[in-house]
C-alpha cells in the first residue's frame, strides 16, 4: 500500500466509523438522504479519488478508489459512493470535470434512446442523484452521455438491502443537446464491467470483514449453557469458516486489483468476481446461523451487511454469468492447457 493509500484508508475509516451508524443506514432505507455523511466525504475528496487534479479530482489512482470502496462496504455506508466514484472515472476518461454531486450510472447495451421521453430501469440511487451517466445507444450510436435527473420522475424501487434501485422516467430531454461522447461499444462495456465488478468485489470483501468481526464479537459475548458460545466447537467451526472465506476473498480481490493496476487484467476479473460472489453467500449464511434468532431481527445490525452481500453478489455478473462468459472465451480463444492458463503471468493488455 502506498503512503497516500494508507492515509486515504485511515481518513476514510475515521469518517465512516464516526458517521455511519445503524440508525443512519435505517434512515437511508426509509428514503432519507445522508447529507452530513455525503458532505464530509465530498469535502475530504473521497468521492473524487482517482481523478486527476486538473479535472477537479483528488488525484491518486483507481486502487485508492477500491480501497475506499472496501471500507464503504465494511461500514455499509448508505450513500452512492460506488456509483459516484465509478461514474466520475468514466467521465474523467473524456476529460469531464468533476462536480462533486452524487451521480449514478446505468449501462444497457440493448437499449436505444431515440425520443425525448424514455425510462431507465434499475438506476442505483436514482432518487438521490443529480445526474445519471448513461452507457448505451442514443439514436443508434453507442454513447457515454450525461442525463440530468431534474427532468425525471422517480418510481421507487430497491434492492435486497433496501438500497435505492429506482426507475427514472425522463421527459422533455433534448437528446442532441446533452453532453455525450461516441465510444466503442465493446471497449466501453469492458471498462464499465471491470471497474464496477472490481468495485463491488471490494465492497463485498469489506462487508465480509465486518461480518467476521461482528461474529467474533458475538461468539465471545453471547452466553449459553453458562459460557460464551465461542467455547463450543460447533460455533468455533463457524468462526473458522468465516475467517477462511474472508481471507480467500481478500486473496482474490488483491490479486485482481494488482492485475488491474498493472494493466494486464483479463481472467483475473471473472475469477475474482466468481469467488467473491460465491463466498458472499456462504459468509452471510454462516454468520446468520452463528447469530441465531437475534441476527434475523431488524434491530440487529447483521442484516445491514448480509442483505448487502446478497444484493451485491448479483451485481455486474454473478458466478453463473462470469463462468459462462469465461467458458465461451476459453473454448473460442484459448490454446493453453488449464495449468498454463492458471499460471499465465502476463496476460497481455486485454480486457475480458
Amino acid at each position, binding site marked *: 500500500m502506498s503512503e497516500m493509500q494508507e492515509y486515504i484508508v485511515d481518513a476514510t475509516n475515521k469518517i465512516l466509523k464516526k458517521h455511519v451508524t445503524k440508525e443512519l443506514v435505517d434512515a437511508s432505507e426509509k428514503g432519507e438522504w445522508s447529507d452530513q455523511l455525503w458532505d464530509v466525504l465530498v469535502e475530504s475528496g473521497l468521492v473524487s479519488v482517482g481523478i486527476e487534479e486538473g479535472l477537479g479530482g483528488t488525484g491518486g489512482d483507481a486502487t485508492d478508489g477500491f480501497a475506499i470502496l472496501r471500507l464503504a462496504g465494511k461500514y455499509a455506508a448508505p450513500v452512492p459512493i460506488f456509483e459516484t466514484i465509478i461514474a466520475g472515472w468514466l467521465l474523467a476518461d473524456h476529460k469531464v470535470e468533476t462536480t462533486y454531486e452524487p451521480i449514478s450510472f446505468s449501462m444497457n447495451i440493448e437499449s436505444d434512446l431515440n425520443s425525448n421521453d424514455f425510462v431507465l430501469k434499475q438506476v442505483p440511487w436514482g432518487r438521490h442523484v443529480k445526474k445519471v451517466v448513461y452507457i448505451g445507444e442514443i439514436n443508434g450510436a453507442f454513447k457515454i452521455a450525461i442525463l440530468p435527473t431534474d427532468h425525471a420522475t422517480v418510481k421507487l424501487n430497491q434492492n435486497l438491502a433496501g438500497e435505492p434501485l429506482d426507475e427514472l422516467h425522463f421527459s422533455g430531454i433534448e437528446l442532441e443537446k446533452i453532453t455525450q461522447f461516441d465510444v466503442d461499444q465493446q471497449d466501453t462495456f469492458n471498462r464499465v464491467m471491470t471497474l464496477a465488478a472490481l468495485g463491488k468485489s471490494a465492497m463485498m470483501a469489506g462487508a465480509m*470483514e465486518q461480518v*467476521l*468481526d461482528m461474529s*467474533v464479537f458475538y*461468539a*465471545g459475548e453471547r452466553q449459553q449453557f453458562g459460557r460464551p458460545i*465461542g467455547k463450543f*466447537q460447533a*460455533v*468455533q*467451526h463457524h*468462526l*473458522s*469458516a468465516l*475467517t*477462511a472465506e*474472508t*481471507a*480467500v*476473498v*481478500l*486473496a*482474490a480481490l*488483491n*490479486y485482481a486489483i*494488482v492485475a488491474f493496476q*498493472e494493466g494486464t487484467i483479463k481472467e*483475473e476479473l*471473472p*475469477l*475474482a468476481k*466468481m*469467488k467473491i460472489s*460465491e463466498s458472499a453467500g456462504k459468509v452471510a449464511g454462516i454468520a446468520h446461523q452463528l447469530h441465531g434468532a437475534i441476527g434475523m431481527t431488524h434491530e440487529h445490525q447483521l442484516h445491514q451487511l448480509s442483505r448487502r452481500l446478497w444484493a451485491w453478489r448479483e451485481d455486474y455478473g454473478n*458466478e*453463473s454469468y*462470469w*463462468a*459462462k462468459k*469465461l*467458458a*465461451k472465451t*476459453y*473454448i473460442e480463444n*484459448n490454446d493453453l*492447457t*488449464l*495449468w498454463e*492458463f*492458471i*499460471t499465465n*503471468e502476463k496476460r497481455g493488455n486485454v480486457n475480458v
Partner: protein
Amino acid sequence: MKNLDLPVVSFTAEQNKFRKEVRDFLQKELNSGSFISHADSWMSGYSSEFSKKLGQQGWIGLTWPKKYGGQERSALDRYIVTEELLAIGAPVASHWFADRQSGPLFLKFGTEEQRKFFLPKIAKGECYFSIGLSEPNSGSDLASIKTKAEKVDGGWLVNGMKTWTSGAHHSHYAITLCRTSPPDEKNRHAGMSQFVLDLSAEGVTIQPIQFLTGEHHFNEVFLDNVFVPDEHVVGEIGNGWKQGMEELAYERSGPERILSTFPLLQEAVEYLKEQKDINGLAQALQLVSRMWSLRNMSIGVAQMLEKGEDVSLTASLVKDLGTIFEQTVAETVRLLIDSTPSVTSSKLIDRLMAESVLHGPGFTLRGGTTEILRGIVAKGVLAK
C-alpha cells in the same frame, strides 16, 4: 481483528523462465514414459529413479545453502518446482518429506555434522525421510504420545510404536517424536524430543497398513529397544514439540493442499472444451476460480514464510479450504463428464477420477484434520 490480507506476489521474468524450464523437463519425462500422471502423486507416487533425476536437476533442497548441496534459491522458486511437479502428477513421494520438512528441520535445529551428513544426500534424491508423529492412541491429540526415549550410554533407547507413517517402507530415516521425560499435566507440550531414527536399525519392525484401495503407503513402525546415538538427537532435548510445530507451517500451506486432484480437473476441462460444453465448462471454471484464489493465498503464505513471519493461522486456513477444494473437484467433475471411475482403466480421466475419489478421505485428515485446523483458527481469532 487481525488484518487477513496476505502479500500479493508477482513472479519475476527469471522465475517465469525457471517455471518453463521445469515444465519442459517434466513434459519431456512424461512423454518419454519415465512416469505416468497420478492424482495425489505426492502421497502415493514412489519412484527413487525419478527422485534422483530431480536431484540431478538440483530441484531437491533448492533453497538450501550450496555447501549442503542446495542451490540457495528462494522459497518462491521452490514453490514453482513443487506446483509444477504436482500439476503434472509426477511421482514425488519418495523424497517428499525429506525435501519439505526434514531438510529445513536440520537447517534450523540440526548440528553441523547432521547437515553435512544428511542434506547433500537428500538433495541428490538418494536419502528419504518419513515423519514419526502419530501413534495408535495419539492422533489429533499428538501431545499424548507414549513412545519413549531413555538415556543410555552414548545415546538413547527408543521403545514404542508409530503409526500412519507414510513411506516408512521406502525411507531411510524417520524424524521421530518421543517422550524424553514423563508427561506433565501442567505443561502437556514439555518433555518431548525429536530423533533421527534409522529405519534399518535393529529393533525397528515396519508393518504395512493397506490404504482402502489396497495400496501401501502407510505403515506401523514398532520400536523395540532401538538404539539412537546422541548425534541423532535433533535440536534440544525437551524442545521437540516446538520444533515439530514449526515444521507444520511448511506442511499446511503448500501447493500439495490444493493440487492433489488437479490432474483430474485439467483433464476434465480439456474434455469439456473439446465437447464445446459451455455449461459444463462453466461449472468447472467455478472450481478454477476457487483454485486460483486459493493459490494466491498459498503463494502469499509462502512469501510470509520466507520472511520469517508467523503463519500458523493462515497456513491452517489454506489447508482447510484447500483440501476441501481437492475433494470438491472429484464431486463436481463426476457430474460433468461421463466416466466409469476405475484405477485399472486405460482411459486417463477414468483413472484420475478413481484416484481422486478413493484418496479423497485422506486429504482432510493428513497433516492436521479439518477439525483441528478449525480449532486453531477459531482460537486465533477469538484471542485477538
